[in-house]
């Protein structure tokens, strides 16, 4: 087994309906699909400085679920000078599946539920690859939260993190480990 656990970071937003989709996908992974293999990151607790949350992102590979074009999840990692193992970009999944978040935020509509499940299934495949491939390695990182400039929208997060597209909706930083199950010949997409 290559990594003990994989961290899932749903974007943590609240206003846009798609933030409910990333959150739902996170819960599906933690409660139903991969109970013991994953743990959800609570970004509010992370920035608050709770030691267990900091240890989580430092010690285990993280998959970010970026809900919208602002890419706030990726942006926070860039701000804290750490890199995710991978990123799922929901607008790409919407384009791929033609499923939409819907109009209800309190409880997702059918389409939003199905979109959340698609996101969760794609993420689960990635997690399984990381957990089961002997060739997958993750080196711990250190959060650096000092002397930060917040609210700097000018940063091109995709470029700053060196994202490369692996499959529809699936990205990873160039210098992070290739994703088992997605990057071997004949398994893309």
């Amino acid at each position, binding site marked *: 087994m290559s990594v003990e656990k994989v961290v899932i970071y*749903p*974007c*943590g*937003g*609240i*206003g*846009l309906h798609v*933030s409910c989709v990333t*959150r*739902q996908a*996170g*819960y*599906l992974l933690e*409660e139903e699909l991969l109970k013991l293999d994953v743990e*959800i990151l*609570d*970004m*509010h*607790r*992370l*920035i*608050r*400085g*709770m*030691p267990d949350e*900091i240890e989580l992102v430092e010690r285990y590979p993280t998959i970010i679920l970026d809900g919208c074009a*602002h*890419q*706030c*999840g990726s*942006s*926070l990692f860039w*701000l*804290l000078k750490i890199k995710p193992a991978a990123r799922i970009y929901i607008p790409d999944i919407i384009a791929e599946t033609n499923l939409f978040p819907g109009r209800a*935020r*309190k*409880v997702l509509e059918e389409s939003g539920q199905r979109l959340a499940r698609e996101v969760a299934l794609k993420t689960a495949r990635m997690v399984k690859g990381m957990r089961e491939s002997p060739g997958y390695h993750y080196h711990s990182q250190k*959060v650096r*939260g*000092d*002397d*930060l*400039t*917040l*609210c*700097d*929208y*000018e940063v091109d997060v995709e470029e700053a993190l060196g994202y490369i597209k692996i499959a529809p909706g699936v990205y990873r930083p160039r210098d992070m480990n290739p994703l088992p199950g997605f990057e071997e010949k004949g398994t893309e997409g």
Partner: protein
Amino acid sequence: MKKVEATVARIASYIVNEDLLPGKTILMCVPAFLRGVEEDVSMVENNPTVVIDCHSESCGSALMGLIGIPPAARIYIPDVVSQTGLIAGKNRQVLDPVGNQLAQEVARRVAKAGKWMLEEAHYNFEKRKAKVIGQTLCKFSEEAVDSLNYIEVEPAIYRPKSMPPLWDGWPGIYER
């Protein structure tokens, strides 16, 4: 978002935003604020904010303290739980009926504070710029919350001492 109380806070926000004070409230997206999305930065700089703290870690209050924008009011869910006897339940995806009732109670308190700010001629909110340079995240400090010097307006509803009074400033006259 790990705890069920986080779902309670989220649903309470939607109840206020969609049902109790539609068109008069906006929801602050913390990740978008940190990202620098203009709408999310300007909303907290130019309007009074009601923070909903889920538990004793008080992540929402701490962030507001950190960026130098004290919230106009704070609803503290553990106090609402003690006061009402309602609990969050066990389901994070879709709240249990009791969790929904708790969310309604939280929303009622948020709306009460919000309505006061919107309707009282005496209420005087001062705009502030967020402190964004040379900041520190991910370092736990009691000071971030202590510096707000919360005083209790009524059970579960607080305001920083430095912020304009709510109905606590007009005892016996404006209590509602």
